[in-house]
């Protein structure tokens, strides 16, 4: 077993849990960024002996995008929408942490039923990538703010990237690129949307968007 890979993967897992239990949006963004960088390095660490130039390029782009550009955009959105408040999960931090651990157990069980074509690089990779994916989904579902939902998408993408990097090798990166592009657009649009929402409504709580429905029907 490759020790460094295991350490990186467990760190990714711990970052999921940290994100679920942290109360500040800034911290969440930072953790997501560091997680993106770590995951971005994965394709390089896995095949340290025979690195293709394509892999390095993919790795480089994803690190730049997820480690710098996305967080930068999100921080800008934070600044411009003037968000200071905390994350506000539904059901409290302990519950969401517990959910995170349960998700990990679930993904561990799920992936233990998978059959792999080639020998595993690390037995942790599959469960952790699933868990990361689920954590992203959990953040999207359980958090109020639009901006935390963007963070959720980022985490979700990290999970997919990790899975792709470990299991699919080079051929997966076409898919990767497409997803990255999607996320990029998503972050962009969300950033603009958040900015406008906050200018119109003075807050960015998504559950208050449902008030729009009433406005329309009243008119």
């Amino acid at each position: 077993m490759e020790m460094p890979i295991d350490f990186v993967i467990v760190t990714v897992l711990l970052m999921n849990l940290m994100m679920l239990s942290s109360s500040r949006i800034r911290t969440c963004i930072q953790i997501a960024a560091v997680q993106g960088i770590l995951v971005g390095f994965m394709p390089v660490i896995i095949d340290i002996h025979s690195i293709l130039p394509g892999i390095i390029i993919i790795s480089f782009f994803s690190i730049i995008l997820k480690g710098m550009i996305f967080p930068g955009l999100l921080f800008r959105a934070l600044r411009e929408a003037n968000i200071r408040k905390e994350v506000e999960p539904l059901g409290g931090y302990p519950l969401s942490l517990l959910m995170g651990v349960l998700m990990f157990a679930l993904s561990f069980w799920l992936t233990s039923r998978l059959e792999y074509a080639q020998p595993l690089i690390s037995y942790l990779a599959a469960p952790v990538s699933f868990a990361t994916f689920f954590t992203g989904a959990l953040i999207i579902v359980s958090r109020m703010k639009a901006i935390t939902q963007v963070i959720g998408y980022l985490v979700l993408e990290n999970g997919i990237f990790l899975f792709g990097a470990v299991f699919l090798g080079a051929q997966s990166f076409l898919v990767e690129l497409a997803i990255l592009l999607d996320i990029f657009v998503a972050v962009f649009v969300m950033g603009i949307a958040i900015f406008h929402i906050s200018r119109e409504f003075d807050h960015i709580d998504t559950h208050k968007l449902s008030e729009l429905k009433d406005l329309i029907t009243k008119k």
Partner: protein
Amino acid sequence: MNIVFCSLTIFIMSGLLALSLNRFVKLANYIGAIGAVCACVLGLSSLFIVYNSPGCAELSIPWFVPDGSLSVAIDSLGALFLFPIFILSALAALYGAEYLRHYYGKKNIGSAWFFFNLLIASMVLVVISRNAILFLLAWEMMSMSSFFLVLFEGEKKEAAQAGLIYLIAAQIGTLFLLAMFILLSKDSGSFDFPGSQITAPGFLHSIIFLCALIGFGTKAGFMPMHIWLPEAHPAAPSHVSAVMSGVMIKTGIYGLLRVINFLGTPCVWWGWLLIFIGIVSGIFGILFALAQQDLKRLLAYSSIENIGIISMGIGLGVLGMSMNNPTLIVLGFAGGLLHVINHAFFKGLLFLGAGVILHETGTRKIDLLGGLLKKMPVTGFCFLVGAAAICGLPVLNGFISEFLIYFASLKGIFGSGITVFVCLGIIASLALIGCLATVLILLIAALRQMLLKGRRVERVLTWDCGYAKPEARMQYTASSYVQPIADFFRGILRTQKHGPKISEYFPDVSFFKTETADLFSETVFRPALKFIHRLAERLTGVQHGQLHLYILYILFTLIALFIWKL
């Protein structure tokens, strides 16, 4: 076997005698109690005979019910359950004789004894019967007699309510048992209990298992089906609660074990299901116990927790059976069964203690109580021992059964075997530790005594941070004691808090009240019952009080039955 029949006869005869002598209250009280104690002692002696020669305790005579015979037997599983039944019932009967004196002239003492003795007799019959019909008869007798005991103070509204809930729960449970036994007889061809069969687990077996789980689980108090326990236990007289919680709910466990025994090799998921139910009952049971303010309600919830622990042990054993892992079988079942016996004793102790407290103070509200250890040193000491034992603290019996279950789960994780030698080593080490602990406690206490000799030992008021006159009302109550953890789990407990909001510096007379309703009865059963009620209301159109139409219904039914059969 004859001795057991003698003891059953004594139960019923003394009960009937007490009932008929109802006018002479004292006499009825003593006859009931003495009859119960004698019968229990007799029953216990029969257990020793069975223990010495296991083969002799079987009896099978033909009877009028088709498909099977009137057969009873005591085997080791049955004896294991009869043991706490006899002991705890005898003790509870002794206690009850004193307890019921309080009710002379107010209550019908004779009938209380009649139902109490009937309850014990039917529990014994449940455990020894080897025929489904007989089993169900005894089972119903047990439910009915305990139902009447719950209604002992039936003029109180909550007791009547509790009785109703208990009756409904018991009937639903019996319904599933009926279905289960019919399926089982279909499988084996007779209503007599089959021997242990080694067949592959089929679909039918899983259905039988699930029916047994629901039917027996309702009696035992597994978590979603537990709602009658916290209602019925506080309503019944304390010695009855002790018997109900100590041994009657264990007949559910007995039934489950017996049925699992019929079904041959169990499926893996049965074991996991039992473990899951055990964990849920354990955690939720103890959380709700924390939030209770009624002492006996708290004990009832704690029974649910302990049933959860037992279920975990049995689940591990079943898992071992399906995976053919003898270590797990032995440790799991041993832990679960030992906990059955242990729980019978310490929960019996706690309920009897709660009865004394209720008797002396006139209240079951824990928040109103305090300083009892000083006023009632013996009760206090016993209660403390019971509490420590139910925590599973070392040196007391609860620890051993919990230790076995832990050990089974730890061993189960590794899947490694265990030899008798290791077991002996553990027992020896535990005994050594027990001795060491006793010696050490004595040594340290003696050291303290020695050091304090000749020095000044004063008694003053508790330091209370400058309050001039500390009084009892300033004591931390049970509610405030559990408040932090109850608040943490507020999502589950949903404790309602009532009280005026304080807005001024010098508030008026204030009050504060919390109440914690049961999660499942509020979220599952109440809506379900409401739904059934609505459905039933629609049917009221059929019932309009005209006799000839009713006869028409009967006629239709008969014709329908004919058509179906012909």
